[in-house]
């Protein structure tokens, strides 16, 4: 009850911010449109709509990190969180309240991306449902990463690190824009050690109905999601105690 009250408040704050909505929903759609246009003029297999859309949905999740981090950092810098710390809300209520509303927003964003891709030529099948469900672990990773960044960084730092650096890094290291094998070496090894490329490959596999291939990528994503969630919770509780 207490956690859901706080979660409702967080959802309202996020959804009422037009910049959040514009970037979170609009930017992935613009990219889909733009890269599809490039693909129609200069065909590149990487930008074929059935390959591109699952990658863009994963890229779109990086905005959940930005939303989550901005909200937590803003709350920390305002006296609102201080007020709420004097109420019966527990640390668990705060964490649920921050993380829970972003999950349906993330899945909603994924669904919108797939719907938007249909008129661009996306092959529609029941696998889209599996691909949407398959986003949950990576969505948790991104939301938890936001909670972590919001717990240790200020609003301005969050804008730079989560808004610019993380969205770009996660995109480069995901193999959405270019084949990682083309770069190879250390870059490819780093990318493979991180969850972004696995999330994209899992999404692509789920979309194609290749569950065997999808299963190969679930472990690193699950491990990263669990680890980041645990670290984020500990950091949030630590800063809560420091208040």
């Amino acid at each position: 009850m207490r956690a859901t009250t706080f979660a409702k408040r967080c959802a309202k704050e996020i959804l009422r911010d037009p910049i959040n909505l514009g970037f979170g929903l609009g930017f992935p759609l613009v990219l889909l449109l733009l890269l599809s246009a490039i693909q129609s003029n200069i065909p590149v297999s990487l930008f074929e709509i059935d390959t591109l859309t699952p990658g863009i949905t994963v890229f779109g999740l990086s905005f959940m990190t930005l939303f989550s981090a901005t909200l937590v950092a803003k709350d920390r810098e305002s006296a609102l969180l201080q007020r709420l710390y004097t109420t019966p809300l527990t640390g668990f209520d705060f964490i649920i309240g921050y993380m829970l509303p972003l999950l349906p927003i993330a899945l909603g964003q994924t669904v919108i991306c797939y719907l938007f891709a249909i008129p661009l030529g996306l092959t529609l099948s029941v696998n889209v449902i599996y691909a949407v469900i398959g986003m949950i672990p990576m969505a948790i990773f991104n939301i938890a990463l936001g909670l972590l960044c919001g717990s240790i960084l200020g609003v301005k730092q969050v804008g730079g690190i989560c808004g610019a650096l993380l969205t770009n890094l996660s995109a480069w290291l995901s193999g959405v824009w270019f084949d990682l094998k083309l770069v190879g070496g250390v870059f490819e090894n780093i990318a493979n050690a991180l969850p972004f490329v696995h999330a994209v490959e899992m999404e692509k596999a789920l979309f194609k109905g290749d569950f065997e291939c999808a299963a190969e990528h679930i472990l690193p994503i699950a491990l990263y999601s669990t680890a980041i969630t645990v670290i984020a919770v500990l950091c949030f509780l630590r800063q809560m105690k420091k208040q």
Partner: protein
Amino acid sequence: MQAIKTTGLTKRYKDITAVDNLDLEIREGELFALLGVNGAGKTTTIKILSCLTQPTSGDALVCGYSVTSEADRIKRLIGVSPQETAVACGLSVRENLELICGVHGFSKEKTESRIARIAERLDLLDVLNRRAGKLSGGWQRRVSIAMALISEPKVLFLDEPTLGVDVIARHDLWETIRALKGEVTIILTTHYMEEAEALSDRVGIMKNGKLLAVGTVDELKQGAGASDFEEAFISIVKESAV
């Protein structure tokens, strides 16, 4: 009966002693003002009493519960209006009030009735559906106090409630605070002498974490041999050895 009792309450941050061996008793229903220059320890004292921070040593009882071991019970009994305006800017005034009712576990019916009562009492009816972030500083302060009051607290902490508001808004807020006297124990911190003089039953003057003097405004004036309260305050603070 005492609403608050502190015993040897001390808070240290590395080399700084923000609150130094504070012994204080505040009666139920009393409006107690904590005065002091910057860094005197007022806000830290409020933070300890409202369970935001733990004391380094000593203890404080709020409504009979210890801040060191029974914070969960205390949090159900207090309302806090922090120094900065603490409202959710993207939410309407009504939604801000609903948020606090929700975190205190109020039913829908109780929430509605509390909002109606508080809105009428604090003259918020006309702004209930407006975004809190769009209101002026004075109105935001009023909303902040309404949020602190809506949970029907036994003890209300007001940390510099009129800081940064214009003179009209300040007098309106004074009226609001004055109307609460006797119903709820209020601990107010302020820099404004006239605010403490106009509102408080008793005043505590702090400096460098220590409580220098406690009493009614008249008692403090008399003790300092001063004709007005500001003069008494300056005299007490300047003449103290701490």
